[in-house]
């Protein structure tokens, strides 16, 4: 505040002076690198003078004589930036992009570079989002919040659960990393979401391309990297409470967080609870094949759910050492649409319509416990930065449905259809070495051990143990300030052991001699399989004034999963018989990425095309054969060729009106195998998003009121593969109003957000929704209000 005042006075006093000869006026803007929003109150420090950025991020130095000047830009919560200006005729406006960073972290990485600079010097095509973006765009699940980023979409089930899809690929082809540890749940399943609390996340980096080099198997299509939260400032105590209410599914949510730091020790804690009812769809009935399901009051029956999450972090930080331990637990219970789950049509005597908040069968429960430690140590005169991540995760998922006889299976005794208990231990170690000034060499390894147990009367994937180890090294070379190269190589080794499984009931089989016998069929084999694969990447990043160019070529891999290798059972929900293939090779993918970004004071433009080739994409192929009257789907491998990319542009008028537009497209073709000529399942359609935001003046006690409209348009998806159906194009509009209100004295302003999603209550289908298969449209109109109050001491 004082800075601002002094700055203002200084600004006025400078402005009031008459301009002398041979002096120049240096103007510039300070922007948040991630959000491109102005940073107010940043100090721009010269040798003898300083200025403070105003509410539009602008700063100004009058009457500068010709010469060379160096300035340092500082603002709390951002990394310091320095810039040099040659003051002479034709002087241009200076743009300074600040990247959010904790001051403690910054101290630790003294010799390093800021995130913003890093994103410009590393050739990987990535996007970063910060807390501001997450708060303003918060949707029902973390991945739905990120969907606004071009190239990112989701696979949804119901209103509260979704999984990331990057450029059309999802499930185990996108690695989700939190606190440096890969999130390990039951990623392959399409009927549950990501078990991560979406509150309390401060920064996310999304890599839109193969990144096995750094993240190992599964990062074949991209990475969602949830970065550790910033370390609190010294001697602070802060907290926030967030309340959320929604009308479409009658959601009530509360999340409260606390953080504090003395000198070296700090902690963070958070609790989140959400409870929601069935979501409403803009239709009275669902038509699925020849079945008609009448809906009560537009409620998609039994899609209610609840979520309770808690986390606690404890950390220590000093000049050369930082260590943070995190314990978090995510617990959810969600119902599934009662009339049909997957492709299976159900009737029941349960009175689903008596309440829209109860969770009846079928439903699932998930509990994900995660304990991680990240430690960074700077040694050898700051030439080595050692980093360890240690993690333990326990994922316990239970799928319950009404016991029903199927085929030779008699009626089971209880509702526990499938139970998975997956324990994962991870260890990452790497050393970042500064060599010869221009090189930054990173070498390390990742170890992971996984143990998956199964239970319940339904069989889908076998119990298995998996051990994997990978070693890598990459070098980042700064040729000069503008040109950076990165090259790296990695080798991974994986061992999967699948356990045998026999049905708990007898099936009738026809013998060769014409007789029949009843046997306990074996569904999975006792097998040990080994995989090994190289990955690597080579790229350049080049900055020319306001334009940044990136070219990156890489090879990534993915180890086959236990279900891909060893399934041999009936998936009743999908009405199919799934057959694994132990002959599968590790998937390998080659990708060439390009990115051009041009950012100026009031506009930006970006384009990021890619081409991609899979040597052996693993695909669950619907065959034309039957097993016990169910269609056989068999895991096969085929070559796949894909290309596509994203476009984005934005412009700001009069520092008030911000217009943004983006588009994304992916083309996929299987170029060999039984489905040659077909696309891949769940291919997102061509889509675009246009948004306009207008910043109003402060009125009454409303501060920074901002109104925004968002318009999404998606083309029809006519590229389909059995058993998908063509999905029509659609257009949806959303509205949002953000503002701050300073009502309570002694507390920071309260942030209030009011949203209307799907304003016109449009009935549309999302090609990448699990419920698309049974012709369930997307949620109808939703009003939501979110209130965020922070406090500090």
């Amino acid at each position, binding site marked *: 505040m004082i800075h601002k005042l002094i700055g203002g006075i200084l600004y006025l006093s400078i402005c009031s002076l008459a301009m002398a000869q041979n002096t120049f006026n240096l103007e510039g803007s300070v922007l948040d690198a991630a959000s491109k929003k102005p940073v107010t109150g940043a100090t721009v420090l010269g040798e003898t003078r300083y200025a403070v950025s105003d509410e539009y991020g602008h700063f100004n130095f009058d009457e500068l004589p010709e010469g060379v000047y160096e300035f340092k830009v500082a603002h709390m919560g951002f990394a310091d930036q320095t810039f040099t200006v040659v003051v002479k005729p034709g002087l241009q406006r200076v743009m300074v992009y600040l990247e959010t960073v904790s001051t403690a972290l910054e101290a630790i990485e003294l010799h390093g570079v800021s995130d913003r600079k890093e994103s410009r010097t590393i050739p990987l095509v990535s996007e970063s989002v910060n807390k501001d973006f997450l708060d303003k765009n918060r949707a029902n699940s973390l991945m739905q919040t990120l969907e606004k980023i071009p190239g990112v979409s989701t696979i949804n089930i119901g209103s509260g659960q979704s999984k990331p899809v990057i450029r059309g690929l999802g499930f185990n082809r996108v690695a989700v990393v939190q606190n440096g540890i890969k999130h390990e749940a039951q990623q392959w399943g399409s009927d549950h979401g990501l078990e991560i609390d979406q509150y309390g996340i401060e920064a996310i980096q999304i890599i839109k391309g193969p990144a096995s080099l750094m993240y190992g198997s599964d990062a074949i299509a991209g990475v969602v990297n949830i970065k550790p939260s910033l370390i609190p400032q010294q001697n602070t105590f802060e907290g926030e409470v967030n309340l959320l209410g929604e009308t479409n599914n009658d959601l009530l949510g509360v999340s409260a967080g606390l953080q504090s730091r003395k000198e070296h020790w700090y902690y963070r804690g958070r609790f989140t609870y959400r409870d929601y009812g069935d979501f409403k769809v803009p239709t009275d009935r669902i038509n699925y094949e020849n079945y008609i399901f009448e809906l009560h009051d537009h409620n998609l029956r039994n899609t209610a759910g609840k979520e309770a999450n808690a986390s606690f972090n404890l950390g220590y930080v000093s000049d050369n050492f930082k260590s943070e331990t995190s314990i978090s637990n995510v617990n959810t219970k969600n119902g599934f649409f009662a009339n049909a789950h997957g492709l299976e049509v159900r009737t029941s005597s349960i009175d689903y319509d008596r309440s829209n908040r109860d969770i009846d069968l079928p439903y699932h429960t998930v509990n994900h416990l995660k304990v991680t430690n990240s430690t960074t140590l700077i040694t050898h005169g700051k030439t080595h930065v050692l980093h360890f991540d240690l993690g333990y995760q326990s994922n316990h998922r239970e799928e319950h449905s009404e016991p029903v006889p199927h085929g*030779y299976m008699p*009626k089971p005794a209880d509702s526990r259809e499938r139970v998975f208990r997956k324990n994962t231990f991870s260890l990452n170690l790497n050393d970042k070495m500064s060599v010869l000034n221009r090189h930054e060499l990173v070498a390390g390894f990742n170890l992971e051990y996984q143990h998956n147990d199964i239970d319940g009367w339904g069989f889908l994937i076998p119990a298995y143990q998996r051990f994997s180890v990978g070693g890598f090294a990459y070098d980042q070379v700064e040729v000069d300030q503008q040109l950076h190269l990165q090259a790296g190589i990695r080798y991974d080794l994986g061992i999967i052991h699948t356990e045998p499984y026999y049905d708990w009931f007898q099936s*009738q089989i026809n013998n060769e001699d014409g007789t029949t016998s009843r046997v306990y069929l074996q569904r999975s084999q006792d097998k040990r399989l080994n995989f090994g694969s190289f990955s690597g990447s080579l790229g350049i990043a080049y900055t020319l004034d306001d334009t940044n160019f990136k070219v990156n070529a890489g090879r990534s891999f993915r180890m086959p999963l236990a279900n891909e290798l060893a399934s041999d059972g009936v998936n009743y929900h999908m009405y199919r018989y799934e057959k694994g293939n132990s002959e599968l090779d590790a998937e390998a993918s080659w990708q060439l990425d390009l990115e051009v970004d041009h950012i100026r004071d009031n506009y930006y433009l970006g384009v990021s095309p890619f081409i991609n080739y899979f040597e052996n994409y693993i695909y669950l192929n*619907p065959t*034309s054969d039957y097993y016990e009257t169910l269609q056989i789907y068999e895991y096969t491998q085929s070559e796949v060729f894909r290309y596509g990319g994203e476009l984005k542009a934005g412009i700001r008028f009069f520092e008030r009106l911000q217009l943004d537009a983006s588009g994304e497209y992916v083309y996929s073709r299987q170029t060999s195998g039984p489905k040659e000529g077909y696309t891949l399942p769940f291919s997102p359609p061509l889509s675009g998003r246009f948004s306009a935001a207008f910043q109003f003046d402060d009125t009454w006690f409303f501060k920074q009121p901002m109104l925004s409209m968002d318009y999404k348009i998606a083309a029809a998806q006519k590229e389909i593969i*059995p058993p998908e159906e063509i999905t029509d194009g659609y257009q949806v509009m959303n509205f949002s109003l953000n503002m701050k209100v300073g009502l309570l004295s002694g507390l920071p302003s309260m942030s209030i957000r009011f949203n209307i999603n799907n304003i016109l209550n449009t009935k549309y289908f999302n090609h990448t929704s699990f419920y698309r298969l049974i012709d369930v449209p997307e949620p109808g109109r939703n009003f939501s209000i979110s209130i965020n109050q922070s406090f500090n001491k």
Partner: protein
Amino acid sequence: MRNYKYIYMKRIQYFIVSIIGMMLLACSGDDSVIKDEEKPTISLNYIDGFPQTCSVLKRGSSYDFRALVTDNFELASYSIDIHHNFDHHTHDDQGVNCELEAVKTAVNPLIYMENYMIEGGVDEYEIIVTVEIPEDVDTGDYHCQYSVTDKTGWQGRTSIDIKIVE
């Protein structure tokens, strides 16, 4: 300094332009293959179609199950599944409601699951399968489900509520 930068810029521009060119070239080879995007269909809606909704089948008798299947491109296989519906777990898709008996527990229900091939890659086929209803199976509400696939892997399904009586 400026010159140095200029040379770099030129080189990088050439590099990027040539990569975009390569990408366009790689992507321009369009596939003119006509893809099969149609599911086969099953019809019981003709005189010989059997069973019809609410058909009553007697124990100890045999019946010709008949359905017409059609597709735009090469039918491949079909299956017939008869299972009990004593617990009312599902209903048929024929648009007619059949009155169900009271819920009961299965003792020795009929389980009929057979798969067949359709030879010759035809686009039209009449399923004719003789099904014998054993003397000792439970009477009550049953379901009959026909499924058919084509060569591509598209599947059509339909199911009918039937009853088995003494």
